[in-house]
């Protein structure tokens, strides 16, 4: 409650957060499971009639709710319906002996007047409850009544996560072998493995957005997350580490190879930290390995480009539009369209289609990340970044999958160029202060670089820098972009949303490394 609501955090679960883990069949490929599944077949996207058929929410009722919400005026009103089912299973001490199921159901009503917002929600999709919520949202305005649309036009969408077999159609007993297999694999990799925790989570979310312009958009969003963490013990010393994979997709998106790599990666990351030291304290050249190092972009620039901070003038990037902020080989993209990635969305949570937005083009700042309010403020089209955790929250500008395009350098050449520095490979969390631009990320695994070569392993250190300063110090960008497929969740104003991030191998010429006596 007392946290700075303007600090943002990005984190990935480093362990099993309590429950949930599904298991694929021990020998099975994901495809085998699909064959056996009795899955509801989804034709195209979620039909806009889902909430009508399941809960009796008719177009007439939606029009009445919108009319009530606009009874005191306002420029815009939208209803956001959500029905989601989440399930998880967890393995600990060799058994898949915990399960969890969650149902979330409700509608959020938002009224916008200029940049002012009235918001209310209800978990009861009954007429009276929805009208009560509409009246509460209407309190933001005090003018003559606006009008509801005469009818709704269903908007069609591109599908960036076509799903043939939904995890929600796979019963628990057919998920459990996945975790059992992961457990066996992990213990088999290293005799020092003492504990294994694994979990599998999936969500099947229907949404429907109806607004006062008559737009009606529906989507059905899949998501799964497979997490593994392990503890190794060697001569009384303990190390733990993790790996996780999370994608917006069904059974087909969890590849056999990825499951095996999950076990190898978690064990390797833990084993490497026996004998690892702390890096030296102070400013050093830092090489960011490709993949989850995209956390740099998320914290150093992504949040600062969210247009709510810029329209209020409080972001360090507020006066930087169309100015150079990085080398010519730096281009940064926020992209809803990467197939099956965790941050991808067919439509944002206020009805704008998912799209690809170039934030930085050849070193020049090109676009903020907009929601409806900021787009109207800047008189530009929305960029599809209006997202929310659930119907309990009003949408605000958020990232999707944020990554840097490939540059001209090679990984080996980048490492070779560093006389004395560090390379960072595994991350757990980051944070930024928007106005000052200071940001951090925590490194779980890395190596020292001495005379152009990776040498001793290093672990558990924080890196802190200033966004614009660090971007200007990105002096080399590799040609090996990788978008990470881990379980990144971004927090802002108390709302968590799934995101993706990626980076080619990069060199930051100087940044403060949290270490010990230099």
């Amino acid at each position, binding site marked *: 409650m007392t946290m700075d609501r303007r600090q943002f955090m990005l984190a990935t679960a480093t362990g099993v957060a309590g429950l949930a883990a599904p298991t694929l069949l021990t020998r099975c490929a994901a495809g085998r499971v699909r064959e056996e599944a009795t899955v509801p077949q989804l034709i195209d996207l979620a039909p806009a009639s889902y909430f009508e058929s399941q809960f009796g929410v008719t177009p007439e009722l939606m029009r009445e709710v919108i009319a009530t919400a606009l009874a005191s005026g306002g420029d815009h009103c939208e209803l956001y319906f959500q029905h989601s089912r989440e399930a998880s299973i967890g393995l600990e001490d060799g058994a898949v002996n915990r399960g969890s199921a969650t149902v979330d159901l409700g509608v959020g009503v938002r009224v916008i007047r200029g940049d002012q917002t009235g*918001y209310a929600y209800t978990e009861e999709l009954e007429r009276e409850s929805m009208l009560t919520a509409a009246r509460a949202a209407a309190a933001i305005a005090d003018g003559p009544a606006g009008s509801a649309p005469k009818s709704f036009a269903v908007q069609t969408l591109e599908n960036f996560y076509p799903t043939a077999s939904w995890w929600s159609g796979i019963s628990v007993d057919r998920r459990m072998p996945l975790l059992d297999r992961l457990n066996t694999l992990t213990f088999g990799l290293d005799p020092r493995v003492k504990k294994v925790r694994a979990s599998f989570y999936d969500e099947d979310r229907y949404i429907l957005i109806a607004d006062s312009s008559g737009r009606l958009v529906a989507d059905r969003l899949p998501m799964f997350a497979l997490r593994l963490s392990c503890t190794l013990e060697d001569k009384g010393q303990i190390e733990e580490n993790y790996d996780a994979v999370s994608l917006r997709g069904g059974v087909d998106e969890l590849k056999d190879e990825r499951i095996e790599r999950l076990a190898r990666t978690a064990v390797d990351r833990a084993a490497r930290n026996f004998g690892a030291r702390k890096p030296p304290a102070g400013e050093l050249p830092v090489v960011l390995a490709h993949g989850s190092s995209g956390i740099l972009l998320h914290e150093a620039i992504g949040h600062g480009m969210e247009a709510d901070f810029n329209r209020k003038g409080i972001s360090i990037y507020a006066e930087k539009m169309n100015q150079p902020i990085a080398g010519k080989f730096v281009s940064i993209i926020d992209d809803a369209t990467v197939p099956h990635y965790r941050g991808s969305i067919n439509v944002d949570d206020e009805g704008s289609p998912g799209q690809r937005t170039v934030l930085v083009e050849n070193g020049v700042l090109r676009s903020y990340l907009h929601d409806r309010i900021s787009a109207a403020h800047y008189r530009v089209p929305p960029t599809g970044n209006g997202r929310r955790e659930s119907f309990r929250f009003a949408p605000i500008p958020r990232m999707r999958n944020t990554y840097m395009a490939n540059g001209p350098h090679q990984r080996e050449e980048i490492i070779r160029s560093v006389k004395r520095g560090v390379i960072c490979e595994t991350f757990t969390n980051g944070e930024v*202060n928007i106005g000052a631009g200071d940001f951090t990320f925590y490194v779980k695994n890395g190596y020292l670089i001495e005379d152009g070569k990776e040498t001793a392993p290093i672990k558990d250190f924080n890196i802190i820098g200033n966004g614009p300063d660090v971007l200007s110090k990105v002096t080399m960008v590799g040609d090996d972009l990788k978008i990470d497929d881990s379980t990144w969740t971004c927090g802002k104003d108390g709302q968590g949303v799934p995101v993706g991030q990626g980076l080619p191998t990069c060199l930051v010429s100087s940044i403060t490394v949290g270490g010990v006596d230099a």
Partner: protein
Amino acid sequence: MARSLEQIAQHALDTALAKGAAEVAVRVGRTRFTSLSFRDRKLDKSEASTSSSLTLTLFLDGRYSSNSTCDLRPDAVADFCDRLVAMTRKLAPDPHRRLPEPEYYQGRSERDLGIYDDQHAALGIDRRKELARSAEEEARGASDRVISATATFYDDVSDSVRLHSNGFRGNYNYTSFWAQVESSVRGDGDKKPEDWSVVGARKLANLGDPAPCGRDATLRALQQIGAGKIDSARLPLVIENRAAGRLLGHLLQPLNASAIQQKRSCYADLLGKSVASAKLTLIDDPWLVGGFGSRLYDNEGITSRPMPIIEQGVLKNFYVDVYYGRKLGLRATTGIKSNLVFSGGQGGLEDLTRGVERGVLVTGFIGGNSSPATGDFSLGVRGFLIEKGQRGQPIAEMNITDNLLTFWNKLVSVGADPYLYSSSRTPSLRFDDVQFSGM
């Protein structure tokens, strides 16, 4: 028409048992939340909603699941129970999963925790708006450098019922009232330092005037103008009370029974041993009047009682829930912290700073993390240089790096100035010889 929480809970419990559960724990809660924000002298955002939830913990055939739904329609609850029973049956059995033994429910205090304001309903929208508006006005009025200030007044009233099929029954009701201000100011170059201030109380009458928060947020932001890093060095560290809670979180993580049982705790073998300087006495106090973590029972129904965690540096208790307690052969204490209270402190922030020849006053953490298994941690910090006992230039973009097992032994002074707006009532703290990374 509307069913009471008791009725909903009893119906869910009966339904789950009828569907085949051997034991059931049910919690039903309902929270009404209102929030009003002022920015640029006008209402920026208004929110008002009522939220309900049902959590159902099932035990059957030695198997376990923990579930929740906000769809409380009787038919939907019945369908949900069908699904849960079918799912739970398929899981692997676990002999340690049962409801708590009823003896854990015994001896519940009947004291008044002072966490429910029965005048809550008398608070109207206009009064809420005025509280937010006046705080924003103060924030803007404190400096002509203010770019944007947002003041939010928010409050909630929450009722819940917990029922267990082996006899536990409890009601837990609370209210809370908060005023929070965020202020951004023009700094050097493109920088726009920002800071926040908050007051909160369980009863509106105890909240006081939130307007000074506005001024505090702006002054704190102004003080950060020109912040930068200094050379890396080992220096004394003073932490302001409101920032210290985050540091405490890293200490508590490995004190949990699940961490110990899963071999991810650097404190696993240290119960009864010295783990910190003798200056550190830390008590988990669920009975604190008006506390934000106050309660009479915990999330498993275990009767809450004050419990020393660390006494004069000696580790006295772990946080042990029923499940991991059974696995470890330990008696459960509680798996969830209530209020954390320090004792034996003296003086305030100025007193702790006064004796420092050259050091750093940390007023906020940013990012960072720790390894509960090894105790290693590294955290981003901001604050001020201390020179000859005085607060000097503002500092940002630095890290502190240490290990929990050595760090808490460097604690040399504890203030008597607990931060009142959190369940972790941290005072200001001073440590010697801490590694700072900067230039």
